[in-house]
């Protein structure tokens, strides 16, 4: 059966040209990637982007239309789920309601005819701090406890890869933050590869070593969280992973390692290395927390770009204040300002300047839609509805 890691050796997970069509709709569009053994990998994307389908193909619960799945050197593409060294933590947990917590956790070991089941189960229940509840049924546990049972039930089998399908989606915010840290700790402890599917960008960045941002069946960008946050390559990634100010501009000159661009009468510079194209129409991007806001016109320096505008909204959120600033050409930019000074804040209607380090800007392809991946309200509601159903 499953060549589990009783030897302690964990294998790489490799997807090769994976495609999945659902009656004409392409859910997964030619995904190839290697997830190194022992890493914490997050598949991040909006609902319907194909991330859960990809996960289910790895688990064996869904057949790919074409492509292959490898674990180490073993091709598992056509193996049934019960012959793969992979276990899953399901969305809403899928705990067996008629079995006790103990029997839920022991289920996988019993099917494989393992020895010392009692010791292993009680060790695992200790790890997730549920030993007292071993004789209870799942319905008698809280959401957070059920979540830990689901993790224990999968992890006790020592899989090469643990798949987590939106495992924290049903928990409230505070518990979710707590479980993120807990899961990360368990992953470091056991050293198993975790593949985590989520639509929550903050969750993905907090937990994963590597984040792959998915959009309509494809991986838009993949890398360490800080890497893709600081240097997004597409408008979708820029907008979906945090927030971004994206402005249309034209390259007018090249100056050493910098592109000089012109936008609505402003001249800015961005490092050539941080732009995906270096001529013609491009999109200049800057993260809201990189913008410095000040009353009146700015004193431009060698190292900064700037814009003037009018404050249209200021929301105080404790650690910071979020400003909306309308530019002369009618675009609204977001700026986050930490509450270092206190007192004397900028108010709605004030004329301000926004300045940022040239080295913080990034350049995207000019043909892109600056609103790609923006979470508008109707989208968020639709997502909430599909999830609760």
């Amino acid at each position, binding site marked *: *059966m*499953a060549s589990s890691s009783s030897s302690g050796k964990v294998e790489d997970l490799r997807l090769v040209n994976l495609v999945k069509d659902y009656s004409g709709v392409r859910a997964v569009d030619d995904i190839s990637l290697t997830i190194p053994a022992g890493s914490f990998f997050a598949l991040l994307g909006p609902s319907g982007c194909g991330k859960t389908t990809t996960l289910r193909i790895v*688990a*064996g*619960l869904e057949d790919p239309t074409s492509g292959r799945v490898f674990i180490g050197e073993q091709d598992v593409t056509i193996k*049934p*789920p*019960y012959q793969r060294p*992979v*276990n*899953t933590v*399901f969305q*809403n947990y*899928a*705990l*067996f*309601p*008629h079995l006790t917590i103990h029997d839920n956790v022991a*289920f*996988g070991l019993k*099917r*494989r005819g393992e020895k010392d089941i009692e010791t292993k189960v009680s060790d695992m229940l200790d790890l997730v701090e549920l030993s007292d509840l071993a004789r209870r*049924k799942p319905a008698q546990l809280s959401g957070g406890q059920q979540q830990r049972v689901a993790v224990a*039930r*999968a992890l006790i*089998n020592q899989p090469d890869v643990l798949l987590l399908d939106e495992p924290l989606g049903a928990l409230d915010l505070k518990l979710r933050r707590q479980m993120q840290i807990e899961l990360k700790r368990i992953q470091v402890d056991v050293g198993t590869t975790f593949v985590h599917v989520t639509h929550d960008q903050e969750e993905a960045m907090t937990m994963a070593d590597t984040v792959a941002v998915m959009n309509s069946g494809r991986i838009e960008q993949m890398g360490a969280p800080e890497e893709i946050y600081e240097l997004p390559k597409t408008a979708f990634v820029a907008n979906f992973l945090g927030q971004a100010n994206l402005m249309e501009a034209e390259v007018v000159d090249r100056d050493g390692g910098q592109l000089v661009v012109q936008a609505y009468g402003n001249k800015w510079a961005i490092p050539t290395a941080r732009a995906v194209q270096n001529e013609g129409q491009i999109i200049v991007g800057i993260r809201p927390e990189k913008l410095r806001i000040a009353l009146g016109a700015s004193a431009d320096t060698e190292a900064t770009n700037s814009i003037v505008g009018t404050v249209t909204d200021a929301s105080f959120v404790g650690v910071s204040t979020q400003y909306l600033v309308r530019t002369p050409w009618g675009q609204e930019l977001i700026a986050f300002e930490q509450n270092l000074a206190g007192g004397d804040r900028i108010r709605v209607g004030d004329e301000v300047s926004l300045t940022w380090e040239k080295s913080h800007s990034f350049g995207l392809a000019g043909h892109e839609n600056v609103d790609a991946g923006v979470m508008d309200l109707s989208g968020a509601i639709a997502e909430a509805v599909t999830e609760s159903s």
Partner: protein
Amino acid sequence: MAIATEKATDARLPLHYRFTRYLRSHFIPAIGILGLIYLFVPIAVVFAFSFNDRLPNGRGSVSWVGFSTDAWTNICVDPNICRAVGTSLQIGVLSTIAGTVLGTMIAFALVRHRFRGRQSTNLTIFLPMATPEVVLGSSLLALFLSTRIPLGIVTVLIAHVMFTISFVVVTVKARLAGLDPRLEQAAMDLYADEKQTFRYITLPLVAPGIAAAALLAFSLSFDDFIITYFNKGPSITTFPVYVWASAARGVPPQVNVIGSLMFFGALALVLLAQLAGKVKRR
């Protein structure tokens, strides 16, 4: 005195509000209790008349003659009554087994698989339930006569399995539809193959639905008069047929004894099931 009353009412809620509130809290429970009485009076009458004495000529009577435990101590005084109950039990058990197995398999097919004609099967399953029994019974008789299948216990069994299947399918389907398919996927993910998944996860979770379906099938079969009467032939007599035939001469109190026993048996089953559920949950 008048002033005092006025002062007291000031603090109270308006009269019409208190009146509707009184109605809400007392009227609806009262109606509920009346409804329950309506349901249980016939059963109480059956039980009471099982203690009715016989008329001096030895016949059963529909009016009260006198108290006697004679019927309870001599249930099989007429051997035909016990033979009829035996026949009914035999037919009931056999048709329940066949109907439950077939109906459960159909329910699984309808809920778990997508195939051509699934929607029309879903509809046709309801047809036997919607067709008047008298029509089913007489056309089945025509079928058996034209195909020269001799009437007897076999034809009754065929007929009973036919009409119990629909009820089993509907009952098991409801339970299956409420079963999260992810539970079976989780079992497969935890190294259970198809057979083990069915044995350890699907079957235990659907079992209450199957048990309910089997009970329903049994009582439908045991109870059936019309279809049975058409298709039984002269050689066998079921309990309902016996009761109907004896009604002309006055129903013996033993019939009420058997009715009461059936009722208390069913009650005991339900209580046992509830008790078992409580013990298991601990």
